């Protein structure tokens, strides 16, 4: 576990900003922008990822232990809800050469959004939709990952075909995307991020280029 954390933190340090270039070029130096990676947040993200590596296949072992319990670290979600959202989030944005949704803490972001960002009626509707989903897919958490993915892909297809009546999934997918690409890993490793571009420069390239996060 320690090795994993160290490896991850090292990977996360790359390509952060151009502060030195800026200071070299302009010698202003009056303002130092804190571009340093927030190590604590990375460790949290990694810790979640460690849990996340159990998902989705091995989650069955945990399934019946505390279904209705509320984790002290969540504001709104129960442990079971958190796990369900974690599985769906990681199917929407899975681990590739960068962490997936769970690996960057998207479920915690969703918990924050339900508690603080969304209107109370939106949160109520979301939780009701989540409850409805769990009832319709009673064995979702214990199902094989291929089955879980089929369920989510079906939802995504339905949302595309008939955008009404799937508010829970629409909202969830939006929160997963926002939570992922505004995270430090999502913005700076998965996408390209430059806090101080130094100017606007159109260019041509024959290679695929990462999109700017901001």
């Amino acid at each position, binding site marked *: 576990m320690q090795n994993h954390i160290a490896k991850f933190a090292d990977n996360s340090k790359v390509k952060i900003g151009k502060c030195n270039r*800026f200071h070299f070029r*302009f010698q*202003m130096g*009056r*303002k130092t*922008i*804190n*571009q340093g990676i927030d190590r604590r*947040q990375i460790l949290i993200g990694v810790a979640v990822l460690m849990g996340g590596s159990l998902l989705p296949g091995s989650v069955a072992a945990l399934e019946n232990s505390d279904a209705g319990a509320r984790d002290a670290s969540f504001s709104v979600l129960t442990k079971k809800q958190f796990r369900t959202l974690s599985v769906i989030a990681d*199917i*929407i*944005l*899975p681990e*590739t050469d960068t962490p*997936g949704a769970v690996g960057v803490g998207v479920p915690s*972001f969703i918990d*924050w*959004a339900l508690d*603080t*960002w969304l*209107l*109370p009626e939106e949160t109520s509707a979301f939780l009701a939709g989540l409850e409805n989903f769990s009832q319709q897919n009673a064995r979702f958490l214990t199902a094989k990952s291929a089955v879980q*993915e089929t369920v989510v*892909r079906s939802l*995504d297809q339905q*949302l*595309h075909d008939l955008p009404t009546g799937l508010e829970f999934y*629409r909202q969830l*997918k939006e929160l997963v*995307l*926002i*939570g992922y*690409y*505004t*995270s*430090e890993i*999502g*913005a700076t490793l*998965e*996408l390209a991020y*430059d*806090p*101080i*571009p*130094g*100017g*606007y*420069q*159109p*260019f*041509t*390239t*024959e290679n*695929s*280029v*990462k*999109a*700017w*996060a*901001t």
Partner: protein
Amino acid sequence: MKTVQKPGNYDFDVIVVGSGMSGGWVAKEMCERGYKTAVLDRGEALEHGADYKTEGKGPWELPGRGNVSKQEALQDYEHVRLCYAFDEFTKRHFIKDRDHPFTVKDGKRFDWIRSSSVGGKSLLWHRHSYRLSEMDFMANKLDGHGCDWPIRYDDLKDWYSYVERFAGISGAAEGLPQLPDSDFQKPFEMNQVEKDAKASIETAFPGRKVIMGRCAHLTEPTEEQLDLGRGPCQARNECQRGCSWGGYFSSLSATLPAADRTGNMTLIPNAQVQEVVYDEATRRATGVRMVDMVSGDRVFISARVVFVCASTLGTAHILLNSRSTAFPNGIGNTGHALGHYLMDHVSGAGATAMIDGYEDHYYSGRRPTSLYIPRFRNVTEQTDKFIRGYGFQGEATRASWNSAIGAKGVGKEFKNKIQLQGPWRFWLTGFGEMLPRHENHVSLSATETDAWGMPLLEISCAYGDNENRIKDDMQQTAIELLQAAGFRDIQGFRRESYPGIAIHEMGTARMGHSPEDSYLNGKNQCHLVDNLFVTDGAAMTSTACQNPSLTFMALSARAAAYADEQLKSGVL
């Protein structure tokens, strides 16, 4: 007969109410001419640089990733939440509407967007900077809407140059009569999609020009600007959080530091000025009454000259509340103009499109300005649908992750697709002129006051037929322009919007030839009170269709120079 008192009898030579775009300029000009100047601002103190708490931060460094709680926005920021620049990063720089209420009447709505700090909206502005032209100063006289401007382009031309050289305006000379060139620093670049769109549109419509937006960003800072601690724009486009480098012009980055280094400025934040005090015997303003919004202390401050630059509606609010036996309805008020002829630009209509190709083109940096299409309606192309006209802002960008919201897909292929630069897209949105109309006005509530005892401002303002026809045309023409550019999936839009949200509010103390039609003369001096000046948006006799801040700056510098002459010659 004027009775000139000795300067020693006053607390200050000059009082400037408001430290935004206009007040900052008056403060600089008067301090540099040696006048002891008090600058009073309703906002909290904000130290340039040190107090820009969210500057340079990534979204992950804020609890809401940039998002303001929707409940909080609805409860505390009823109007401000509608501003394009309002988010978790910039929230602190906007006023909390709930703590500073105003009312609307006659069933109309006004979205008044206000700042919370010293520097006012100069911290929050969109920085597009354009001169008005001779056509704009002649418009009221020629079509009879609104009173005639008492000045013409030639009166302001050199003052435009003066403020541009100090503020720093990037742009390109185009030689267009309806949009005179400024004294420019080099323009930002167009990307290839924009260059090709420009060529296609200008070929299809020879009377229309697509130019790079002119904006108050330093691209070639001068010694004077560097001496003030400013540096070149870094293309972060996070301006409203505050910019420590002073890459864009604000009072905090430019005019207030210039005023401060003279040693002549006393800056008083948290100062709600409630009235300008009038002395009937001398027929002069003697000073202002203010409330310290933190301590609640009420203070009278005297000065030889008073400039009210409290933002268009803030200025009208104070002047209407400056009641005396001689002026029971507000200092200098003849009943014809003060509080009336409120205007804003008409906005919220345009079009968007997607663009095939250009896969091998991208850009680095977040350009802090966009393209501009100067007014062509009733300039190079006449229409009988409406009088006056509008301009467009717009740009081509490549989609990024947020365009995946609402898109179909899950899994690795979905994620890998989002990772790469998305398709090109284009948007155009118009800003149109609003005619001055007497019925669009503000008044004081007879029954309600704010927490500091100031009567609430009541606003009654609505767009009229001419503005609505302009808005229709902005949508249709934007579609036509994007078609000419050869784009696909063109979608026009025409959002319901109310005055205020263009954040170009103007009028309510307009300039004119006589007290019978206006509040101010051609020097921004109150017709009936010689030592009272107004140089902010309230002074505007018409709106033109250009972003107006540059004109506020030029009027402010010009009026300050005039006040200086009058003070030196003993008239004031």
